[in-house]
């Protein structure tokens, strides 16, 4: 009788297994180093760029000035209420990430994610001080010698130094960079500054030094749902099992190209075996590609046993070589079955479309944004006042925000039922008797306006009303709407 019992599910609990990735050289590794240097360089250099905005204004090119509630980006200056531009930028980044993933797989994870970049940097430091994979494993398994303790202390010291420099760099985006660096070093920074400096130092140290691949496997949501962006035409890191199997020693007759040397496993920063197929843990860094190419080169076999490959091509090669014996023929047949990368697909077209639409909407919104706004807030206590001659008066708080530093003054007129009288407290009037409101450069000027309706007007209980600001030429430069309230007629 066949065994019909259901196999027990694998346990949900997994004890942590420390990963000792081996150093590797090659094309992908070179690209990764270049990306790392470029990204960290941009990250560290940007806060030091200067941009002259005139006296009394920060001259840092990129600065999130929390204390003064301004976001500076070169020539752009945003107020807190315009934070949706930042939201738009994040939406663009998200869709861009979806598009890149559907085209080229997990290149974000493998090459540009801060977690990957800093882990790479920390691993490099670890190798300089404690040696490569085998030396580290041997030392960890051995006794607690003086040498081991010294090396360990040196490693953690170097990690902390890098982490501190990172935390400091992040602080520099929120305070004037030269000032805050001097303050931190000389002990004059505020408690908040030290707190955030310490926080970012600690997170960098822990995430890149200790958590590493567990961040990608257990903490990060992105690997969990990016499967929705990948399809059979996306580039993923793949083991070409159709030419590698069956595995065997180099001299064994009848074995495939994979010599089971384990190089791909030893270099993997997440400690997996790519030959087991697509896995959640694989961040697509491609270091196993370099490791395998190196081995294939030494054996004078064609490179690319592990490669960035679309799953559709893998299936085509597998189908074309089914039943063939290992050897050059099988390799050629498999490679011939591949098709060029299929970049233009409904999915990628859709991402491109959404990307373009959002970018266009944001650009239009930015170009059309108002730099002078007028807000009219009707006073609610009291909603209206009856004067001794029986007329009804409403009061309004007018807020005139000027997002430029040009200054100027504008005449205020009322657009509403005829006969309303407008007075603005503490302002002068122009030749035509209209109140003149001076703006507050890069700030909000507040005025109190009184609007009176004579007893003879007999207005409805609620009457729409609009305040308009006119420049010298009589053009409306800003307007704000409100209502005029009165007793039930």
């Amino acid at each position, binding site marked *: 009788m066949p065994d019909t019992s259901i196999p027990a599910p694998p346990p949900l609990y997994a004890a942590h297994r420390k990963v000792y990735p081996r150093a590797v050289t090659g094309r992908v590794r070179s690209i990764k180093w270049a990306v790392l240097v470029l990204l960290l360089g941009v990250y560290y250099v940007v806060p030091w760029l200067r941009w002259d905005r005139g006296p009394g204004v920060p001259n840092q090119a990129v600065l999130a000035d929390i204390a003064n509630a301004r976001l500076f980006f070169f020539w752009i200056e945003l107020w807190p209420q315009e934070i949706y531009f930042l939201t738009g930028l994040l939406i663009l980044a998200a869709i861009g990430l979806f598009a890149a993933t559907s085209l080229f797989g997990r290149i974000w994870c493998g090459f540009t994610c801060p977690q990957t970049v800093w882990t790479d940097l920390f691993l490099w430091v670890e190798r300089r001080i404690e040696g490569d994979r085998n030396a580290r494993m041997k030392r960890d398994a051995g006794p607690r010698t003086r040498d081991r303790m010294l090396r360990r202390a040196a490693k953690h010291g170097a990690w902390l130094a890098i982490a501190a420099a990172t935390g400091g760099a992040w602080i520099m985006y929120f305070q004037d960079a030269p000032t805050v660096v001097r303050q931190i070093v000389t002990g004059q920074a505020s408690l908040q500054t030290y707190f955030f400096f310490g926080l970012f130092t600690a997170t960098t140290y822990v995430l890149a030094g200790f958590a590493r691949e567990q961040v990608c496997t257990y903490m990060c949501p992105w690997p969990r749902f990016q499967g929705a962006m990948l399809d059979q035409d996306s580039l993923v890191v793949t083991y070409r099992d159709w030419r590698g199997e069956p595995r065997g020693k180099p001299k064994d007759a009848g074995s495939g190209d994979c010599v089971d040397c384990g190089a791909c496993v030893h270099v993997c920063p997440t400690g997996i075996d790519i030959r087991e197929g697509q896995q959640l843990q694989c961040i697509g860094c491609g270091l196993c590609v370099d490791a395998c190419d190196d081995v294939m080169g030494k054996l004078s076999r064609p490179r690319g046993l592990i490669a960035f490959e679309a799953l559709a091509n893998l299936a085509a090669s597998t189908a074309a070589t089914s039943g063939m014996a290992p050897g050059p023929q099988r390799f050629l047949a498999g490679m011939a079955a591949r098709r060029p990368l299929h970049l233009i697909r409904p999915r990628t077209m859709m991402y491109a479309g959404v990307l373009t639409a959002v970018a266009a909407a944001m650009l239009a919104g930015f170009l059309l944004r108002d730099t002078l706004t007028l807000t009219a807030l009707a006073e609610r*206590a009291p909603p209206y006042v009856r004067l001794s001659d029986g007329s009804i008066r409403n*009061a309004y708080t007018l807020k005139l925000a000027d997002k430029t530093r040009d200054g100027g003054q504008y005449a205020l007129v009322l657009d509403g039922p005829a006969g309303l009288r407008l007075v603005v407290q503490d302002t002068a009037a122009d030749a035509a008797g209209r109140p003149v409101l001076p703006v507050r450069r890069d700030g909000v000027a507040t005025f109190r306006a009184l609007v009176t309706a004579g007893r003879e007007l007999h207005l409805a209980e609620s009457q729409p009303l609009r305040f308009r600001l006119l420049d010298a030429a009589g053009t409306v430069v800003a307007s704000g709407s409100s209502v005029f309230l009165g007793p039930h007629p």
Partner: protein
Amino acid sequence: MALKPETDAVSGVATTGHEWDGIKELDNPMPAWWVYTFYACIAFAAVWVVFYPSLPFVRGTLGYTGRSDLSRVMEAERARTEPMLARIRAATPAAIAADPELRGFALAGGRVAFANNCAGCHGAGGQGAVGGFPSLADDDWIYGGSFDAIQQTITVGVRNGEHPDARGVAMPAFAQAGLTPAQIGTLADHVLSLSGAGPASAPGAALYAENCVACHGDRGEGNRELGAPRLNDQVWLYGGDRAAIGRTIANARAGVMPAWGSRLDPATINMLTVYVHALGGGEQ
């Protein structure tokens, strides 16, 4: 329950022997970091008890109290605002209103003082209420709307019996002074006619001339010295319909207001004056 320790097959950890619906509790040791943090907390608490008030009737060696903290903050705040308050105390309300810096400070301070002391009767925005709480946002003033008049009214109050110079004189209750209900009705009609609500009448005018003119004036223009309100405008402190006016004539009205001069410091009264003046009805 097993007598000897049972080992969990998956994790290799001994169980406590406790079981709920087939789920067994693992007997994992406390993580070392947790245990040391716990010990550190105990040590911290021991030190804390020595320095800070933690036990009943024990102050702690630092002598710290939350109240002393608060009074220190308040003291610092007073020291910070004192230069401005000194200038406000020394200036007249009119001078404060003319100086943009002082005016801004006085309006902000006055708003807070108004909410704390005045809004209970006069409303959050000075809108007042029918029934004897005058609106301070309109242009109708019983005792005057100039800076000096407002300052004086706040300082001495109205009919409070506590300040010798308190504003206001008593209005007679005319029902007790001998007017019949019919006469009171006629008089109420005449008072309404002063502000254009209804026709004037000869008997009413005669009654008015006999009883009201001395305080409220020939045409109902009122008298700010006495605190006799205008009767020829559209603002009614106790309601403007015939019945309400009749009740006012019959029983009289005597609104009161505390004398704030003994309750608030001169700087606050100056700020309140500037604030009330700016509500919308200030006179020069």
